[in-house]
């Protein structure tokens, strides 16, 4: 069986000369969940932007057996759903329903099918009551749910979550955790939140200046790098 993600020797340098990734190897099996830890600016977000070809560095990136290239880009973007840290950047259509239908329409689904899929996914994330609301008027927790719905509507095999609990209050964080636990997809979780990582993942990797400084069992990695708030 193909790995969900297989990356070898990934390097990326920003135009200003910053070496953001410096030889990263990474594997993720189907259905597996892994947490990415590391200080701000250590390369975690740059790394996840490579998973669906938003950034293209040196090295090889394979998603579900498909090598990342111009020819496979569309297929890969339908397989890797990225939930960005700031939901406001992800919600750009005038209503919640249209926003969630945006991805399926781009995949070529007929409008009626895309809207039906969007409604079903919004029901699943508990936002079925907000179909016609503008996303800008939702709470942070609701925006995050809609952002996740927008990604789930594309039926991805891999979910990439960049700091999913940012801006969320405790109840919204609890609801989000329950939702994410119920999703069967393989997950790459970028987070500073050790509790969230323990609850959702079994394995973790620690980024330091664009390299993997350590990896292994999530609890071991948290202890080894003292990755707790207290």
């Amino acid at each position, binding site marked *: 069986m193909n790995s969900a993600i297989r990356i070898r020797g990934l390097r990326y340098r920003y135009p200003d000369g910053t070496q953001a990734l410096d030889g990263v190897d990474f594997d993720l099996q189907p259905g597996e969940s892994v947490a990415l830890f590391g200080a701000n600016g250590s390369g975690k977000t740059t790394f996840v932007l490579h998973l669906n070809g938003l950034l293209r560095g040196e090295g090889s990136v394979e998603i579900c057996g498909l090598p990342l290239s111009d020819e496979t880009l*569309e297929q890969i973007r339908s397989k890797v759903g990225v939930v960005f840290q700031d939901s406001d*950047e992800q919600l*750009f259509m005038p209503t919640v329903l249209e926003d969630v239908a945006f*991805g399926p329409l*781009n995949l070529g689904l007929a409008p009626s099918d895309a809207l039906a899929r969007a409604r079903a996914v919004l029901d699943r994330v508990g936002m079925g009551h907000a179909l016609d609301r503008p996303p800008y008027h939702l709470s942070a927790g609701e925006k995050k749910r809609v952002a996740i719905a927008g990604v789930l509507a594309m039926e991805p095999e891999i979910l990439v979550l960049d700091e999913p609990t940012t801006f969320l209050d405790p109840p919204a964080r609890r609801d989000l955790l329950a939702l994410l636990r119920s999703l069967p997809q393989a997950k790459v979780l970028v987070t500073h939140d050790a509790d969230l990582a323990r609850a959702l993942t079994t394995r973790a990797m620690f980024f330091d200046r664009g390299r993997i400084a350590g990896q292994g069992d999530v609890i071991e990695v948290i202890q080894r790098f003292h990755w707790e708030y207290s």
Partner: protein
Amino acid sequence: MHHLRIDRWSRGSSSLHDRDPRAKLAALLVLLVAISTTPASAQLAFAAYAALLVLAVQQARLPIAGLAGRAALVLPFSATFALLTWWSGDSLRALALAEKSFLSGLAALLFVATTPLTGWTAALESWRVPRMLILVIQFVYRYLFVIAEQAQRMRWAALSRRGSRPRFRRGWFDFSAAAGLVGVLFARSWQRADGVYNAMLARGFRGRFVPATPAPFRGTDAVFVSACLAGSLAIRLLL
């Protein structure tokens, strides 16, 4: 935000909202041509165009004051030319210039306020308007939200740190703060717009907004276009 309200209006329910965007675009173009070619002396015709538009606004169940206020935003631009014309001694032509720009603005606004963005850009696309131009319209419209929200956050941050400066220095402080805000706003908006675009690409955006609710061109749409054509022509030729 103005555009947020227009977005909400465009999702209303009325016989005008229900018309196919292509039909409304055709009617708009007919009306704009009629207005722009009406001679300055035909003041009765301008009144008739205004009456037609007021009737359409009522039919669309939209607030006439709100639409007229927004349409009046074009007046400062046309006022320069109207004033020049007035100074040259042709007051009737100056008045007609202001009337034409206001009525054209009101007609265009009514079209946008009764047609969701994806609908009217799809109509432009069906009329073979260059894709690049349509994309620019769509991105400008989307990024208006981004920039307006960013500006509001920065204004609040600036106000909350303004404190109680002496009144005589406040004017200069406001001016220099505003100048700084504009510079930072540009940089931050660019970053945020980049983030929005990345999020769109991540969800399969391929350079075209696909409308979620395409509507077939119906017989009532053809009747609507015909009625608008007949009405505009009648006003243009008979009054």
